[in-house]
């Protein structure tokens, strides 16, 4: 028995619906007879086309400009709680992003309903159940939510494919719930993007990632050159080098970073801590280059090369250039 009403917390950036939210809308079509999206952004209305095309019949648009001036968690949870009261959804899906977690966490506390995070699968057979992996994806766990509606589930991006349903734009329902004064105590005063040029990490056919084995932050240039030679490739990083300040967090792949599922993932000087492998083991193929033949990454690799990453990566870049010029 499917659910009656499933909501997706849809994030919007640059006037476009975030891909992770469209993945959730696609999944929601299987779970509920009515699928609706909720957006908190002055650009909310611009997402109606994409949201509708991925299955949302309705888009609740909270487009007060104040939503961009404050941290979203507090005011969005307030507004969602009011909307939940009015429309009684059975399930709300959030993507596992910073704002997704902020809103879902506050909403769960406000409503006193359970929340499950790190979902890789969601099923609704009367009750909602969630599949996730724990302990570095060594165990698969199924969790049933039974603590009242709505169930709140936070899903790792890339768990589902986004597929259009062919439907037209979602019906826009403006939400005129003001941002309470107390939420203005925490204000966003500046935003900085640290996104590299070239294909996005989540979308590239090849991801070339670096870790401590690169020995020096400047050696990330070698990975940039390799990615450039390959073409449709992006550069990622392990948590260790992000924490050490070598490269921005936007490049981090892993449990607390991005999930990637490229055709080929090339791990360069990455030992393969569980924290990291959770974010990349969904790659179709994995290549590992590491000096330490006992590195755990070799247990996952389709092709492992034991050797000096600082020698092999430049050789590989040259080899690819040579082959492409033929």
């Amino acid at each position: 028995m499917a659910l009656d009403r499933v909501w997706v917390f849809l994030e919007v950036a640059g006037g476009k619906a975030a891909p992770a939210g469209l993945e959730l809308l696609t999944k929601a079509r299987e779970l509920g007879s009515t699928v609706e999206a909720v957006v908190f952004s002055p650009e909310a209305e611009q997402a109606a086309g994409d949201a509708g095309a991925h299955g949302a019949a309705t888009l609740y648009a909270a487009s007060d400009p104040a939503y961009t001036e404050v941290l979203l968690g507090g005011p969005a949870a307030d507004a969602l709680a009011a909307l939940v009261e009015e429309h009684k959804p059975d399930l709300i899906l959030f993507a596992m992003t910073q704002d997704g977690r902020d809103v879902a966490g506050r909403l769960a506390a406000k409503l006193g309903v359970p929340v499950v995070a790190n979902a890789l699968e969601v099923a609704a057979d009367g009750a909602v159940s969630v599949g996730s992996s724990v302990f570095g994806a060594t165990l698969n766990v199924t969790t049933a939510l039974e603590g009242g509606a709505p169930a709140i589930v936070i899903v790792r991006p890339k768990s589902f494919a986004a597929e259009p349903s062919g439907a037209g734009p979602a019906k826009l329902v403006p939400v005129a719930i003001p941002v309470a004064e107390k939420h203005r105590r925490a204000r966003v005063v500046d935003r900085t993007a640290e996104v590299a040029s070239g294909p996005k990490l989540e979308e590239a056919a090849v991801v070339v990632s670096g870790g401590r084995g690169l020995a020096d932050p400047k050696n990330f240039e070698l990975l940039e050159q390799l990615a450039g030679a390959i073409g449709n490739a992006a550069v990622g990083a392990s948590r260790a080098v992000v924490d050490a300040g070598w490269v921005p967090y936007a490049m981090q792949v892993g449990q607390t970073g991005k999930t990637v599922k490229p055709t080929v993932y090339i791990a360069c000087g990455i030992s393969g801590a569980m924290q990291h492998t959770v974010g990349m083991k969904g790659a179709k193929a994995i290549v590992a280059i590491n000096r330490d033949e006992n590195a755990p990454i070799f247990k996952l690799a389709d092709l492992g090369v034991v050797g000096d990453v600082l020698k092999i990566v430049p050789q590989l870049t040259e080899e690819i250039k040579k082959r492409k010029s033929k």
Partner: protein
Amino acid sequence: MKVVVCVKQIPDPNTTGQLDPSTHLLKREGVEVVMDPGDEYGVEAGLKLVEAAGGEVTIISMGPERGLDAVRKALAMGAAKGILVSDESLRGSDALSTARVLAATAKREGFDIVITATESTDGYTGIVPQAMAEILDVPAVTFAKSIELDGDTLKVQRQTEAGYDVVQATLPVVLSVTAGVNEPRYPSLKGIMGAKSKPLDRLTPRDLELSGVGGASAGQSITAVEPAPQRGAGEIVKDDGQGAARVADFLAERKVI
């Protein structure tokens, strides 16, 4: 200034965790336990704040009696006092129960800033700071990768998907910090010795006047556990000068070059 830092004792993250096959609860027996490495950044952040602005750091934790090790470590790093909330009924608590217990403890203690990690390294739910902030009715300033305090205004760089936002908030707040926000200090020998005489309280949900928390009231239960399918290891070669060419062949087979 009163800073409350939340810490958690977890199974050593360098070992693979296990669930009890009958109860589906985390196996704690016979497993090395440590302070969650993510919490060391929170303790350090708290100590830095009070070193600059005056005041003291109180460490709070929920968990079995062994959780005292994590609290003691934080005391050895320099925190002034510790509180462990422990009760058999709390076993199997979900994230929401955990947030209710920690929020009630912070409220009882009084705070200008409550600091947490962004998520625990064993459970990774990652919503406890936000849920605590909702219960305490204060802003949740989350995912901080740098922290500055100017009077009662906190200024942080907050990690985002694309980069970071600069966020300014007036106290009181709940603040979650990322690994990398600072370089946690090691407890000194003097710190370790001194920690033994610092106040360490034990509370139960009853002391906090909480009901309906703990495993029995968790709105979720694990219904199945199975080993995840593992990727098999493939071909491993030692680089003899041909390693790069072998990788190029592999990329060509996969049609990405």
